[in-house]
């Protein structure tokens, strides 16, 4: 898994989304069932990642991914998405992410630096994209 990460890893990109890149809705994440105050909605972090698990559940879906840190160690991150019902109507499926998938993912990171974020977009291994990409 480490070698896969090394091959596919791209440089960590932290983008000041609102002013530089136009792909983030000005309104931030879709309304969650809870406060979204813990996320830094002004930043989009882009990472290469390997999917550990996709939780297709209410009230929100979660993508558990491994992301390599600056020391070359794998760290698990929890990326929260919208509700499965609305995501399904936007083209997501329970099989959109599978364990072992190598993906690129963008998310609003947590303000306190902890290893979680709110989903912005993803490019799957076959080139398809979900969300804002």
């Amino acid at each position, binding site marked *: 898994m480490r070698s896969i990460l090394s091959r596919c890893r791209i440089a960590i990109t932290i983008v000041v989304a609102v002013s530089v890149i136009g792909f983030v809705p*000005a*309104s*931030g994440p*879709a*309304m*969650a*069932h*809870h*406060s*979204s*105050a*813990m996320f830094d909605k002004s930043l989009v972090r882009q990472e290469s990642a390997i999917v*550990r*698990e996709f*939780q297709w*559940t*209410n*009230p*929100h879906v*979660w993508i*558990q991914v491994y992301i390599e840190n600056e020391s070359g160690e794998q760290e*698990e991150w*929890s990326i*929260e998405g919208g*509700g*499965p*019902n*609305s995501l*399904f*109507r936007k083209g997501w499926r329970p099989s959109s992410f599978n364990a072992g998938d190598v993906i690129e993912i963008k998310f609003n990171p*947590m303000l*306190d*630096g*902890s*290893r*979680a974020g709110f989903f912005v977009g993803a490019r799957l291994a076959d080139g398809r994209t979900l969300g804002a990409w």
Partner: protein
Amino acid sequence: MRLLSIYLLLCCQCAIAADALSLPDWSGVWERFEGNGGIFDPSTVEPKDGRAGSPGVRQYPPLTDVWEARYKANLALAAKDRLPDPISFCGTPAGFPRLLALPDVYEFIVRPEQSWIITENGPNIMRIYTDGRDHPLPEEMWPTFTGDSVGHWEGQTLVFTTVSMIGEKKTVLDRSGLTLSDQASVSTRMFMTEEGLLRAELTIDDPVALREPWHVVRHFRKLPDGTRVYDYACAENNRNPITEFGQTLTLDADGNTIDIVIDNKQSN
């Protein structure tokens, strides 16, 4: 006598069928047209694209001075993520009138004697009686999330009043911390516009919280034929518990708290 009974029953059924034919077609699946940031009253929100609960975002209903002060206090807490939305606990419904401003989808089921508003999010089920009954006697009502709704049809317009809503004790109108008292009542007119939107015109009276009636308009747009509605089971995998001080936390896949910074004091 038996023939007379059968005759009267058939007449009654024919009358109901005729009534049903005169009702508008609100079938299918709908979603809210405006207020994607969860704002209850899009017409008074500032800034116009503001999201409920974000710092500096508020609405301007005709609140009394006391309730304006309460709203400002709630706004300050919400801006610091210390005013939990009651529905974020995954235990209670959004209630009326907030249920007209929810994400996900809606169904509007009309029958001559009763109509239902069903929201996928929550879910919430609102029953509107149009069989001629009145609100219950005061001693036979108690505040509930959805309240008690009775009304009638004026042509293709559903007209109803809602009373006995639970108010600020257990509900908010949105995450900015906007609330009403349990003395509020709502008069609603719902009809289809020429553009094919379903329009809800609300006149909200509250002798405790409002200086004058508050007029709110919301619309719904129809989704493509064949759209399905699904379970919304909030407690299925809620990884965002809320602390006793109102902070929303995040759990990892194993149920451990991810947050590095956790407040352990009451926010002012």
